[in-house]
């Protein structure tokens, strides 16, 4: 390709986080007036790429050219002034302010005396919203808008700043209704025709077919293929996205057939999140749950654990029905939940390993209501040995440990209660390869001892390597079920992204 300089030209970008390679030598050229799809599994490096291009992150290596001129952004605002904007799935808005105020925040046009002319502001907002076919009331509070509506406010904002040289859209259709999606696509076409370079990050390639000119697929932080959209079939794209190899997974023996059912879930429903979810997990079984971001996996796990009680449905542990109304009750029933956000929900990072591990079993460690330090220390020592936690001792502050070791502390905390059912939400997200294998071994060991494990993960190779059965969630429903021997990356990803017959 040696045509005139592309609108956006990213050259050989690399970025690592604490030894984990998020992006490695990725290049991307986007022409003005074109729509480019950036595809890849979770963790393929798409978001990292966008964050670098919009100044939220700094690349370790590589260059960025905008209309042929080298540039490097150190803040989102700087990128925006240069005309490069990203609209995220969870837009950053000021909920207490109205639509027009959000559109113009940071660059109010002021009249004499530095006063904001509100009439002008509302007229300008209405005009902007009309160009993107939105009939939103500019005086409506943003707090009351749906995610889809908020995205349209973000578009209006991008237009208001004339930040329309490069527009990144992160999973723009994930939370839109079909009507909104149609409108969004018309807006994108309009912007493309006006000369904007649009980059859409998505999993849902099928619905983007008619819109996209060029497709780039990333995998494991590396570039796989860039081709005209018409040159690749859906199946070819899926094959390019998958095919990662996961080393270091301990092979597990198949669970004993006919083991009794540990966890039985029927008709679990939470309005707006998921609908009629039902499955069983037997003792010693690991059931993988795969789904794209926003499919409702975490919501299902949190409802099961009673954090956000479901509207309907039943849960039984070892045949005894238990209503998931509070985490306390689910704990008593023998469930444990390892959340995705371990820093905020799984740990008390400023306390020692000993106190974190003891947190779930304080009453058992106490005598006459007074905590016995010796028992706490003994528990911590046992946990460190059992899970091979690398630490300076029981009193090490958890925030000083590495990601993998922090995750082991979370596991240790739950193992202390001897759970019957373990719900794992992205247990190896963001931890290095070695620790990942150790976590896998721990989980496999637990299953061997009869614990029923629900493994929620966006990591396809992990799901395939660990699971005895796989559930695929999309749009809040279980859309496919596979046994281990019939599960394949292509089959699972096809089901999860709503592709019909790609494989």
């Amino acid at each position: 390709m040696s045509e005139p300089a592309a609108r956006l030209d990213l050259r050989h970008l690399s970025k690592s986080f604490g030894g984990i390679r998020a992006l490695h030598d990725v290049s991307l050229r986007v022409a003005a007036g074109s729509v480019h799809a950036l595809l890849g599994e979770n963790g393929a490096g798409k978001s990292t790429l966008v964050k670098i291009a919009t100044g939220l992150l700094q690349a370790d290596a590589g260059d960025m050219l905008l209309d042929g001129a080298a540039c490097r952004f150190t803040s989102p605002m700087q990128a925006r002034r240069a005309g490069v904007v990203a609209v995220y799935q969870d837009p950053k808005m000021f909920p207490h302010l109205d639509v027009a105020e959000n559109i113009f925040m940071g660059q109010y046009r002021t009249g004499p005396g530095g006063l904001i002319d509100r009439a002008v502001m509302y007229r300008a907002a209405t005009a902007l919203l009309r160009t993107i076919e939105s009939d939103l009331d500019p005086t409506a509070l943003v707090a009351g808008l749906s995610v889809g509506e908020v995205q349209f406010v973000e578009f209006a904002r991008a237009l208001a700043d004339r930040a329309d040289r490069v527009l990144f859209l992160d999973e723009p259709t994930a939370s839109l209704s079909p009507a909104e999606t149609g409108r969004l696509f018309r807006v994108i076409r309009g912007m493309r025709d006006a000369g904007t370079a649009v980059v859409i990050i998505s999993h849902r390639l099928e619905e983007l077919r008619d819109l996209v000119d060029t497709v780039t697929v990333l995998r494991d932080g590396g570039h796989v293929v860039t081709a005209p959209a018409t040159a690749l079939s859906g199946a070819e794209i899926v094959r390019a996205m998958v095919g990662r190899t996961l080393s270091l997974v301990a092979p597990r023996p198949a669970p004993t057939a006919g083991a009794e059912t540990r966890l039985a879930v029927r008709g679990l429903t939470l309005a707006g999140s998921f609908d009629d979810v039902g499955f069983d997990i037997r003792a010693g079984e690991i059931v993988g749950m795969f789904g794209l971001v926003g499919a409702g996996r975490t919501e299902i796990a949190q409802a099961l654990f009673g954090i956000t009680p479901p509207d309907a449905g039943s849960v039984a542990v070892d045949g005894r029905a238990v209503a998931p109304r509070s985490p306390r009750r689910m704990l008593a029933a023998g469930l444990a939940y390892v959340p995705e956000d371990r820093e905020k929900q799984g740990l008390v990072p400023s306390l020692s390993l000993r106190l974190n591990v003891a947190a779930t079993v304080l009453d058992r460690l106490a005598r006459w209501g007074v905590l016995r330090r010796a028992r706490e220390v003994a528990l911590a020592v046992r946990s460190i040995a059992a899970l091979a936690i690398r630490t300076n001792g029981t009193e090490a502050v958890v925030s000083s440990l590495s990601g993998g070791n922090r995750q082991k502390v979370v596991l240790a905390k739950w193992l202390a209660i001897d759970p019957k059912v373990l719900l794992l939400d992205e247990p190896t997200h963001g931890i290095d390869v070695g620790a990942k294998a150790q976590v896998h071994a721990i989980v496999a060991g637990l299953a061997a001892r009869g614990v029923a494990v629900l493994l929620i993960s966006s990591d396809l190779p992990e799901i395939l390597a660990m699971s005895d059965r796989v559930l695929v969630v999309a749009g809040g429903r279980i859309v496919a079920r596979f046994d281990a021997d019939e599960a394949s990356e292509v089959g699972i990803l096809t089901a999860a992204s709503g592709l019909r017959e790609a494989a």
Partner: protein
Amino acid sequence: MSATAAPRSDRLVFAMLQGRVFGVAAFLVLLCLGFGTASRNFLTVSNANTIALNGAILVVVACAEAIVVITRNYDLSVGSVVALSSYVGLDVVRRYPEAGPILILAPVLIGTACGAFNGFLVAVCRLPSVIATLGTMSIFRGLAFLYAGGHQIDPKDLPPWVAATVGGHVLGLSALVLLGFAIAVLAALGLRYLSVGREIYAIGSNPDAAPFYGLRSERISFRAYLICGTLTGLAGFLFGGRVSYVVPYLAQGLELTALAAVVLGGISVLGGSGSVFGAALGALTIATIENGLILLGASEFVRQFIYGAIIVLAVITDAVVQQRVRVLLKARRQRVRAA
């Protein structure tokens, strides 16, 4: 996603958020009727005048406090700032009688300096605002005592323009009351029509979003403290001009009354929402309660109890309303999504 044909719950949400000020006003009217029935002296022109005069200064301090609370911070030092700016400021006025009314700037600028120090601690040093201003509450009060050294200022020693300003009348209305009203109006207009006003709401509403809009939160919260200090300094001047002796232990506990007024006026302690008019009405309500209780012969302790109860009740009301609003908004979002 048609917001033009707003369904019922939309309007309800709007009414609940906008109606907070009317709610306080309605409460104030009920209160007046109650006190009026209980005491014959309550519903008189002269008593209304007393309430307005007593309330005017609290209105100024409540507006000042409100601006800081909207940014998700607190200022617990306002009572001490009133004492310091009042004593030191009026002492300067007393020493230079020939300088004239320009010296009203002395207490005002002392307030500004105190606000700048608070802003420095909270916005620049990033100390939690409750702790930082709890500290400066003692520091400013201590400075006032140190400066006074056991003395007090007799208003008779002050130049006549002080009494003329604080006790004067314009077009038959008390200058003090007009000033309180003007400040509430100016603060409300500034928050609505100046960029910094909208930014004050913005950083209180969602501090995490600020960098994406090129807003510098620390600068904005610093300015909020600066405005708060300046207005509080002005309140110090007014306060000193009205008391029989200016002493360093003036306005003890005013921070609590001001916070009560702010919360009562419907300003969310979680930041981002509420109007200074609400705070002003809250201040008037508290002045009314104080006046009514005194007329009814209630003791100081009973009044303390009632202020505390008001704060708690107002926060509970706030929580209930916010919860209700959240439910309505969620219902709306789901409807939009389903449409």
